[in-house]
């Protein structure tokens, strides 16, 4: 098949950037979307043009590296699928495709389709963990976890941190991402001690990073390649309110003597 691609080309974070058209022939339906871009890039190099930069690594839909917007939809037309797992058989012959990077103030463009998502790491660093230093754990079966809770925690934990939810949200909110971690840990008995302080800290960090508020539009859930559900956001809000009411600054611990 034959494709017309309009791809966002931006040399550097300060460059203005623009859409550039390319045509590509003999695309096979068995190619993944990224393999199609590999073919384009090989041709560009042959012509002495710099190849299109895009993030990718596992190409199995699990590392969360890849992601861009195809014709207005984050990760493209197939639900529950990252661009690396999207195959060209999803597209018609002679299709015209527009490829753009995630657009969000908190995700500045680095080059072409590559953006800086380090804000997500800082949200996790602000509280997305259980404080358990190595070596201090009890036996694995000492903490029974109801299967249902465990399954729900797992469903939230499958977030790959790709950023599609932010890109799809008109407010560029990181609520789906943040709430997935708050739910994963908050649903487990191990996560209870820090449950409320975690929610308070992570929500505050997301705000500081410049992500918007959630206004229940639901675009995030629609584009999430891992099917993370919006009910996590309700859980986050509940934990945040409980946490905000009970929040106290840490006290000094050293005693006399």
């Amino acid at each position, binding site marked *: 098949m034959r494709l017309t691609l309009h791809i966002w080309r931006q*040399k550097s974070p300060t460059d203005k950037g623009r859409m550039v058209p390319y045509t590509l022939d003999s695309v*096979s339906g*068995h*190619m*993944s979307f*990224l*393999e*199609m871009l*590999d*073919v384009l890039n*090989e041709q560009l*190099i*042959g012509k002495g*043009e710099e190849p299109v*930069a895009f993030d990718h*690594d*596992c*190409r*199995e*839909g*699990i*590392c969360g*590296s890849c992601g861009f917007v195809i014709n207005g939809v984050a990760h493209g037309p*197939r639900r529950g*699928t990252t661009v690396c*797992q*999207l*195959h060209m*058989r999803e597209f018609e012959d002679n299709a015209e495709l527009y490829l753009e990077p995630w657009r969000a103030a908190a995700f500045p463009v*680095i080059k072409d389709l590559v953006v800086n998502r*380090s804000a997500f*790491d800082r949200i*996790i*660093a*602000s509280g997305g*963990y*259980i*404080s*358990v*230093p*190595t070596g*201090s*754990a*009890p*036996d*694995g*079966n000492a*903490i*029974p976890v*109801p*299967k249902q809770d*465990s399954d729900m*925690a*797992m469903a939230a*934990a499958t977030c790959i*941190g790709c950023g599609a939810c932010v890109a799809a949200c008109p407010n560029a909110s990181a609520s789906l991402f943040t709430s997935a971690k708050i739910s*994963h*840990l908050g649903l*487990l008995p*191990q996560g209870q001690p820090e449950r409320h302080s975690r929610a308070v800290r992570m929500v505050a960090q997301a705000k500081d990073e410049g992500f918007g508020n959630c206004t229940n539009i639901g675009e995030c859930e629609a584009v999430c390649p891992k099917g993370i559900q919006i009910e996590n956001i309700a859980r986050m809000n509940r934990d945040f309110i409980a946490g905000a009411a009970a929040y106290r600054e840490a006290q000094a611990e050293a005693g006399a003597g």
Partner: protein
Amino acid sequence: MALNPRTPSGPIEKRWDNAKFEMKLVNPANKRKYNVLVVGSGLAGGSAAATLAELGYNVKCFCFQDSPRRAHSIAAQGGINAAKNYQNDGDSIYRLFYDTVKGGDFRARESNVYRLAQISVNIIDQAVAQGVPFAREYGGTLANRSFGGAQVSRTFYARGQTGQQLLLGAYQALERQIDAGRVKMFPRTEMLDLIVIDGKARGIITRNLVSGQIDIHMADAVLLATGGYGNVFYLSTNAKGSNVTAGWRAYKRGAFFGNPCFTQIHPTCIPVSGDYQSKLTLMSESLRNDGRIWVPKKQGDTRPPQQIPEAERDYYLERIYPSFGNLVPRDVASRAAKRMCDEGQGVGNTGLGVYLDFGASIERLGQQAISERYGNLFEMYERITGESPYKTPMRIFPAVHYTMGGLWVDYHLMSTIPGLFVLGEANFSDHGANRLGASALMQGLADGYFVIPYTLGNYLASNPLDKVAGDHPSAQAAKEEVEARVRTLLSIKGRRTVDSFHRELGKLMWDHCGMARNKTALDGAAEKIRALKGEFWQNVNVLGESSDLNQSLEKAGRVADFLELGELMCIDAADRNESCGGHFREEYQTLEGEAMRDDANFSYAAAWEYTGEGKPAALHKEPLTFEYVKPSQRSYK
């Protein structure tokens, strides 16, 4: 130089405890004065960086992805082993040790493997406490399954995403330390050389992949946890960025490379579909628990699988290996598939594929049960191939998956360069000539959480180090070499892309140093790879500049190192005149086509020393002795 593996003596079950007791400790107040570099943020690097920071060391951690959470460990699907014996089915530390030594075809160090089995139980406890959502039974206890090559259920799993969940546990622990200011994280940063001063590892040279800036980082010790080098074959199940550069640079600075030719070819991957293919996708081995492998009995049978009656199917693993059946170890399963295809019984357009059929299990257990177990894998298969495994058998073929070889390390995980430690898949240690399923995650986390915190402390406490700074001539020289190399790559402006060289190298490796090897082919391949390397440095075309994100430049540096590694792999494979585990030399096989080891002559780990550009690498041998598990021919019949 004589290799000293520093393995402790005494009864095997006491060795690690005794070794730990004898190790020197660093005073808690002094730990923050030590600077430690951890290159890699996968299971091995992430767990090490977090744990060392918790202990109080001053840590810098590096990865080439945009976040430590994206290290290739994230892709592991099937599970992690631990000798918990929660299922009461006869497992024990000793049995896990025994299975792993045997599974590795008697080419691993007994002391290491025993320690790994011991530590396995602590890993599960740690991961559970971190909130890793392992599968559970209705009563709330942890669930297990059996996994390729094991007859007990000792594998812990989180759906088909065990690596992801374990890595996120380590990543979260790491982020906690980053927030506390005890780890400084450098994402999108690639290590391009090692700084060695007075014979000790004292720092690294890195390139910031966004700005192109080349920096010097000095330290008291350097830990490499940079993963495996399966991408030397171009097509593999590894992530696209996985590479050997860090290890290879260390090799050229004096670290010996152990058993480079020991490669694992995984039996259950989705077959290649065309020339544009950029990577191969693994279908978890756990599928072999419920899927039956077969090919048509008739050669060149082109009927769709549903139309081939039972009597005309050859369930060859069940036929040849009645007691292990579809669960034989990976090397055995892969070779059997190759043999079937070589004999013309392969399926699919290319004839390079065998069926993995769930029909019988779906009939027995119902579609619901199968979908609960493997739903996500079936979906992935369908997305890639356009076929549903619920309706038609999967087509699978072996693919390069894991590298047992890596930098040689002693019992302390230290390489032949003092102060350079190597963890996880990047080292050569615990899996011998073949790794059993669900044991790489175990090894990576054992190294990072529970071994290195002791052995690193011992090194620092027993080796007073001079203060050195980045203006040291060795550091400056290393930096200049890296800068020169980058300049050269950008200035060649030849006619071939980096990928075209990588593909050609990969094909040479797969054809001659893949599932079946022989002396003549290996010698020829080494020769061709040398020539290809020569052409690369004359004719590669890398566009763009070094002062911004330049993915072609990154790839070029990695492929340049793969070209050198590929040659050493062929040399190592040609030198090992026996078949063992994943290393199958056609000249050395039994009448039935099974691997024939030569314990009298090859019971050693090969450690190769770099002796200079254009000079042959020097072979050192670490003899392997087996006091507990007596070498026997592996039989899975």
